[in-house]
């Protein structure tokens, strides 16, 4: 059986509906991330937001990326949260003040930024972007290992250096401060 092209009463497609929901969730969660008091909740909200984002990727036909998003971020972020808890639980719990004194100007700046970007996007002619394309995994793999072999290698080096440095910095040092 097939669904109608557009949803009755609403007058737009299912995928549009899906898009709106995902977008809503993502933005909402993101807002929570930056506004909630308890840092742990922030972390959770971020996971939600990123999950929704993954959904959007799927909607955009980039399934592989979506998968990677789930793996990397959910994974990485959970680690992040753990660290966060480990760190900030010790002293005075979640701090009294969430926001910096300059939160208000910050909000204005962010708003302007959003507005600017939106206007620009609207004003720009992006050429022929009629239909949506689904990325076939094979092409992806090929381009990753032919055209993008060099970036790929460099990223690995990047990660290596990051790990080394991270380990060094995070390693607990015997001997007090000076």
């Amino acid at each position, binding site marked *: 059986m097939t669904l109608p092209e557009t949803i009755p009463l609403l007058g737009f497609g299912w995928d549009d509906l899906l898009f709106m929901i995902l977008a809503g969730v993502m933005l909402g969660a993101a807002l929570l991330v930056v506004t909630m008091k308890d840092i742990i909740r922030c972390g959770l909200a971020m996971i939600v937001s990123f999950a929704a984002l993954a959904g959007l990727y799927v909607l955009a036909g980039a399934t592989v990326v979506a998968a990677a998003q789930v793996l990397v971020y959910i994974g990485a972020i959970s680690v992040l949260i753990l660290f966060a808890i480990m760190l900030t639980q010790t002293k005075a719990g979640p701090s009294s003040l969430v926001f*910096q004194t*300059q939160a208000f*100007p*910050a909000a204005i*700046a*962010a708003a*302007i*930024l959003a507005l*600017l970007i939106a206007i*620009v996007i609207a004003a720009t002619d992006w050429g022929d972007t009629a239909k949506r394309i689904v990325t076939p995994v094979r092409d992806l793999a090929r381009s990753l290992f032919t055209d993008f072999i060099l970036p790929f290698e460099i990223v690995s080096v990047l990660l290596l250096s990051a790990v080394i440095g991270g380990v060094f910095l995070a390693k607990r040092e015997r001997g007090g401060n000076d």
Partner: protein
Amino acid sequence: MHLLPSLLFAATEATPISAVDHGLYPLLISLIPLLPILGFAFTALFGRRLMARWGRGAAEIVPVGIVIAIWVIALMVIVPALSHAEPFGEQGLEFKLWTWIPAGSFQVDLGFHVDALTAVLLLVVTTIGMLVHVYSIGYTAHDRATWRFFAYLNLFMFSMLVLVLASSWVLVFAGWELVGLSSYLLIGFWYHKRSAALAAKKAFIVNRVGDVGFALGIMAIFVNTGTMNIQESLAKLIAPGAVLTIPLGVVALLVFAGAMGKSAQFPLHVWLPDAMEGPTPVSALIHAATMVNAGVYLIARANPLFAHAQEAMVLVAAIGIFTAIFAASIAFTQTDIKRVLAYSTLSQLGYMFAALGVGAFVPAIFHLMTHGFFKGLLFLGSGSVIHAVHEEQDMNRMGALWRKIPITHATMLIGTIAIAGIPPLAGFFSKDEILGEAFKFGFGWVWAIGLVVAVMTAFYMWRLMGKTFYGESRVDPAVEPNIHESPWQMTLPLVLLAIPSIGLGAILGGQVFAGGTGLLAGWLEPVFKDSERVLHGTPEAFQLAGIDGILVLVSVAAAALGLAAGLALFGWGRRRVRQDRVDAISNANGATRFLYRASLNKWWFDDLNDLLFIRIGGRVAAAMWWFDRTIVDGAVNAVGLVTQDAGGGLRRIQTGRVQNYALGIAIGLIVMAGSFLLIVGQPR
């Protein structure tokens, strides 16, 4: 050409001394200034040691000897020069040692020019110079560093001779400044006396005021003629149809300004009385007989220039005669014997300028000579008096000296009569010629004032005599017993100067009464004839029975009147000063009282200068310095401070808080995005 050779070259081509056409005269003439400067150098360098080793005599022998030597040499030059003999002739002898300033189109020769006028001055300068040197030996007998004194005197002789001999304006100016220097040094000889130091400085600076004028005059002459040689430039200046960038009158006045400075004409007279702080021989030599005459010489030298700028001449006459009466009025009440003589000098110089102004050049020079001798005599005499009463200069603390120092008294009496203008002494002839010619050339006012001055002169001179020599003694009792006549080195010059003070006038100008032309006039005739022709055509003959006779009588009467008044008030022999009458007259009424005070305070001129140049001038300078520190430098420092503060303010944006930084970046981002959108949006 290579440089060092060029120097040698300059020297050789500049010394045609070996040239035969002029014979030995260039050498002799060159020696006249050369010897004194050598004497100066020698004495300045070794005088101290010589004196320490072998006493003062050793230090004095060289300078004095040199001056005597140049007197002899000068005579060898003067005689033929006056008689217009070869190689001098009527034009005079001129030669060049080397090119002093070879500045492209501006060439200044270091050379000399000797004609009759020069010779006359040479005569005065060397003669009186020599006598003063001799006199100084005695005068400075108990002074510490006499070697310095004689060195300075030699330096002065050098400077004065350069001034007189110079063939180029710039060289005249050089001598001009150098006499200023030597007078500075000599006035300040007793440098530990503050008053002396101040007087020296004042003399130099006031002279400089005149020098500015002179310097500008020289430049103007160069602009007009393109040469610095005196004779050439004068010829070019008055050449018919000469195109002058700067009018003759201006040039003449600028030169005259220089003359005013040196000859202390009103209002630049202020330095001369103060100059009396110097040793008396200096006053006699520099401030009576020689240097102060330089102005007169300068104008006489430039007579063609003035003759063609008669508007300037009138001013010369006016300033001259005014100075004469002005100074005389002050001389009335001064009590310092040397100051009285100083003001009298001013007054006589005024006469000379008046003479120049009316175009009576010969009488001017004539008076210059006679005055040189008798005023020199009077100064040296006053020095002898001061010496006798132990450096006391106030006439109120003298009196009744005529017995104690007879020679001094006698000679000074001669000088007084001479300056008063009583025939047949020297002063009479010269002064009478001046007044007479002033009258005849139609300067009645000059003549009238001159006459008044004659009366005044006779009067205050007798006042000096009376207060000093006659009446009862007011000398400090402590000094009284050991008053004594001065040593021979001092009295001899007095005697030697007394002789010309008596006879010189008759010898040089007496011939006119015999219906001839004066000897001096004959000598100077080639120098002045053109100018005199321009000014008053051919002079009519002297008629004793006519106008000239009357003028002579009048002026003699004036002199006599003055003397009589003096005798009446200030006595003679044992007859004492009638102070009561003096006071009575000076306090007669408001006018007299005012005049008395004015005379006593020198018409408040020193106070005026003090106000103008010390008080106000000082304030101005201080204000300018404040301006320099606060405004000019302040601006500079302000720039620095502002920059610093800007930095101090800007560093505040570095709050140390990441979020502030981030916000800054975000704002920067927005601004940049905005501007880029603007840029990109522009149609191209």
